[in-house]
């Protein structure tokens, strides 16, 4: 008989508590896990909390779901605050009186925001910034406020200020110290950070101690500072540091630090056997770690110890890289040069707002600290120097000097030792990455999914890529991008050859740049590129042989060789008369009808020779091709919008129709789906589309590169509150940039995941026009828009293409193997067995 499952109770379901659950499951010891959370929802990403104000929802921030925990076999209770520990009976009791037995207890209760006991601090509109509920309160308060003050100018305070700013109130930051982010940044860096933040419209007040909060005159409240100055405001956000949530440990006699925090050893065990503490509630070596990476590390250690492993927590690096209100801030190691004998080098470019400082040891051999403001591009390199004790170059200043001024090249991935930690969130070292490559993972995505590297904060993405590339190169793996045996080029290169060489046919392309006859890979890709660039008729005699059968016959082939027909129904809008025509056509040709996911109607079971007859009738009724067969824009889904809906704030249907009509017919590397929602309720599901548009009070929020289907990807919020003209410009540029640079059959979601520089880079290209391409991309899109023709209309008016739609060149017979049977009052293809029973000869 096997031992009974070990019972593990986890108190708290923040990021660290959740990570512990994942780690323990990975240990695979069959533990019976129970999670008790005082919060109303399961774990979510607090690091990216401020994105709640730029359009992310609680669901977007969620790290898990009840269904996921159920699948994993993890029992959980929310709104279940633990109020009692019985160390002898080994049970915990919740506020509701429920009792849970444990063999091992893990406290991951986190921290709470410290609110200084200033008289008048506890009134309405005095808030903190930690949970989603806090954000909801901030949002509600901001809606009835004009001015907001954040008390505290540290890292979290500036995050909170960003939230206030995005909520649309005049934002002030009040800091007791003489500078912002005094923990991570030196004085010089603090000065520049302040000026950059003030440029963004946030007012900063340093060296200010608040004595009392009173009623204001112009605004709700008044902060009275020591020395007599005052500041009026409507709301106050306290962000003056965190305190460990150790009340439970205090009450039930676990050892605490002098200033709080549950004391733990290197195994994350508290003073009590079988009780662990991890994350911000834990005090290790008299230190509370307020970052997520060390918390994850503790979670890993505790899980390992429960499973009998021997990992140990031995402290953590507190270096930080982040973007605060769009300003790069980096801090590594001894940023304040407090190490005896430390020397520093400083580079400052005030006009461009860049400050860089490195701190080296007395021998100028090792890097011990750094501060970066306004430009984090050297962060990864500097961090590796510091963490791995790599010898500095002869002139250490070369590490921070601008290129061309004697700057050293970035530290190659090759120079890093195998012990170098590449991803600190998930604790993946260069050695782990090499092991994963040696185990057969030969590209970045598979290394990522094998090691989980770069799946935390994502800050190491660029470094990870260079390590993988470098290791693959060393193994002689040529990262081959040839599209097929006929062309030694990638799709992107072929596109370039076609455009620059003004090549208009496949014959010309293959004779100049390829070999052989081509194939079912390169021909459709070339046909697609030719169509994107020149927009010539895809069934012209030059082009027809390039097309997949769906494009050749402008319909979708089904399993029995018949086709389905989808006319365009822009935005899902259709008149009763047109609906009747569809019904009549379907009835006349005995077609199976079904609604598609893209809000239109699909007619199935059309034989090749029926397609022209069907389309004659559809064209007569005013329908045009829906391109359901093509790698091009499929549909723009819409909700009903402000025209009918009580909640709509913009005309989503009108916008969707305009957009569908603009981009219909654009040939692209893969299909493109779009949607427009008329308000934030998002009924059109725009965030799962390549291009998603959500109406706001002030215009439109634009989301890009989402996907449903096989590998869902939530779209990225690209720009907010756009007017229609600007939005169209951005979409023009985005689509053409994608058409130019994507691989064959690469959806925008995968394209984005592989785009070096990611969303920020895309914004630079599209919004700031960093490549100087915007005008060209727009002109090219305009060409496609201006030369649009309905392919069915052209095909039906041309005898040669009409002739293609027949089963036999020499007979009016039909394909005797196409047999339908009835099901639910419609046709469906007969199965093989049914055909045998009907006496149909197969072949």
């Amino acid at each position, binding site marked *: 008989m096997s031992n009974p499952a070990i019972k593990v109770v986890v108190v708290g379901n923040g990021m660290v508590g959740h990570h512990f659950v994942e780690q323990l499951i990975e240990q695979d010891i069959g533990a019976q896990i129970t999670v008790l959370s005082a919060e109303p929802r399961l774990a979510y990403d607090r690091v990216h909390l401020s994105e709640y104000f730029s359009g992310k929802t609680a669901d977007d921030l969620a790290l898990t779901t009840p269904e996921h925990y159920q699948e994993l076999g993890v029992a959980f209770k929310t709104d279940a605050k633990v109020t009692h520990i019985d160390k002898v009976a080994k049970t915990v009791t919740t506020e509701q009186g429920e009792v849970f037995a444990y063999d091992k207890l893990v406290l991951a209760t986190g921290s709470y925001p410290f609110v200084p006991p200033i008289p008048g601090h506890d009134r309405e509109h005095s808030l903190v910034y930690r949970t989603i509920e806090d954000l909801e309160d901030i949002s509600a308060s901001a809606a009835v406020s004009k001015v907001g003050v954040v008390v505290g100018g540290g890292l979290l305070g500036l995050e909170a200020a960003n939230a206030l700013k995005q909520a649309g109130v005049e934002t002030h930051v009040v800091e007791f110290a003489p500078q912002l982010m005094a923990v991570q940044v030196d004085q010089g860096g603090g000065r520049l950070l302040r000026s950059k933040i003030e440029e963004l419209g946030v007012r900063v007040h340093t060296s200010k101690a608040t004595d009392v909060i009173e009623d204001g005159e112009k605004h709700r409240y008044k902060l009275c500072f020591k020395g007599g100055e005052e500041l009026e405001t409507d709301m106050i956000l306290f962000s003056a540091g965190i305190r460990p949530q150790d009340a439970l440990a205090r009450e039930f006699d676990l050892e605490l630090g002098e200033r709080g925090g549950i004391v733990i050893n290197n195994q994350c065990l508290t003073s009590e056997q079988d009780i662990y503490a991890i994350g911000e509630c834990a005090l290790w070596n008299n230190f509370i770690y307020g970052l997520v990476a060390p918390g994850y590390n503790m979670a890993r250690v505790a899980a390992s110890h429960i499973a009998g492993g021997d990992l140990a927590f031995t402290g953590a690096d507190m270096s930080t890289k982040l973007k605060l209100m769009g300003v790069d801030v980096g801090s590594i190691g001894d940023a304040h040069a407090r190490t005896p004998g430390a020397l520093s080098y400083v580079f400052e470019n005030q006009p461009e707002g860049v400050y860089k400082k490195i701190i080296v040891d007395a021998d100028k051999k090792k890097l011990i600290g750094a501060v970066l403001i306004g430009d984090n591009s050297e962060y990864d390199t500097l961090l590796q120097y510091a963490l791995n004790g790599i010898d500095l170059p002869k002139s250490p200043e070369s590490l921070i000097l601008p290129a061309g001024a004697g700057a050293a090249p970035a530290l190659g991935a090759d120079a890093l030792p195998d012990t170098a930690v590449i991803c600190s969130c998930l604790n993946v070292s260069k050695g782990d990455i090499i092991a994963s490559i040696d185990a057969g993972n030969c590209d970045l995505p598979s290394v990522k999914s094998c090691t989980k590297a770069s799946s935390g904060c994502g800050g190491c993405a660029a470094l990870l890529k260079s390590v993988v590339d470098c290791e693959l190169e060393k193994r002689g793996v040529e990262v081959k991008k040839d599209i097929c045996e006929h062309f030694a080029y990638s799709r992107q290169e072929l596109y370039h050859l076609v455009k620059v060489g003004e090549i208009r046919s496949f014959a010309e392309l293959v004779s100049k740049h390829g070999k052989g006859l081509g*194939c079912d890979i390169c021909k459709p890709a070339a046909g697609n590129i030719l169509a994107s660039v020149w927009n010539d008729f895809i069934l012209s005699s030059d082009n*027809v*042989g390039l097309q997949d*059968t769906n494009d050749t016959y402008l319909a979708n082939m089904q399993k029995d060789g018949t086709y389905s027909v989808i006319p365009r129904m822009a935005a899902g809008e259709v008149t009763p008369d047109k609906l009747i025509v569809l019904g009549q056509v379907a009835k006349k040709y005995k077609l199976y009808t079904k609604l598609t996911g893209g809000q239109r109607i699909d007619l199935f079971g059309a034989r090749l020779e029926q397609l022209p007859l069907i389309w004659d009738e559809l064209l007569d009724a005013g329908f045009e091709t829906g391109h359901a067969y093509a790698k091009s824009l499929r549909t723009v889904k819409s909700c009903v919008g402000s025209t009918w809906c009580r909640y709509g704030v913009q005309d989503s249907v009108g916008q969707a129709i305009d957009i569908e009509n603009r981009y219909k017919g654009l040939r692209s590397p893969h299909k493109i789906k779009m949607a427009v929602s008329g308000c934030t309720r998002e009924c059109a599901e725009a965030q799962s589309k390549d291009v998603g548009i959500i109406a706001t009070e002030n215009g439109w929020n634009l989301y890009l590169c989402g996907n449903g289907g096989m590998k869902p990807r939530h779209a990225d919020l690209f720009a907010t509150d756009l007017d229609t003209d600007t939005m169209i410009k951005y979409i023009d540029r985005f689509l053409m940039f994608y058409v130019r640079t994507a691989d064959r059959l690469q959806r925008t979601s995968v394209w984005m995941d592989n785009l070096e520089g990611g969303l920020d880079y895309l914004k630079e290209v599209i919004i700031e026009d960093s490549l100087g391409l915007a005008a060209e991309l727009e002109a090219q899109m305009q060409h496609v828009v201006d030369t649009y023709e309905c392919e069915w209309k052209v095909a039906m008016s041309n005898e040669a293409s009409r002739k293609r739609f027949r089963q036999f060149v020499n007979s009016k017979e039909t394909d005797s193997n196409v047999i339908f049977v009835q099901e639910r009052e419609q046709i469906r293809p007969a199965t093989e067995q049914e055909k045998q029973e009907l006496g149909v000869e197969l072949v």
Partner: protein
Amino acid sequence: MSSSSWIKVCNVDDLVDNSGVCALVEDKQVALFKLAGADDVYAIGNWDPLGKANVLSRGIIGSINDAVVVASPLYKQHFCLKTGMCFEDDDVTVPVYATRVEDLHVFVQVAS
């Protein structure tokens, strides 16, 4: 022994360069292909034995090394137009028919 005969099927004009058409020859569906600039006409069975439908005439023509092939439009297996052999599955072949062109007419030879 089975005899065979040449059947006149269609005009050369009915073929489409670098693409396929289908003809009904003695109750058999035959896929006909012609490359641009070449006189040869290839003929194989139209039945896709893997996809189980009469569709091979609607596939894309290409080459694998020196072999001229058609890719099935259903699941993309490649069939050699000269031998009928399937590149993805050695056990699968499709019938191949002899062809000739005379006075702009296309003839196909089928067993009768």
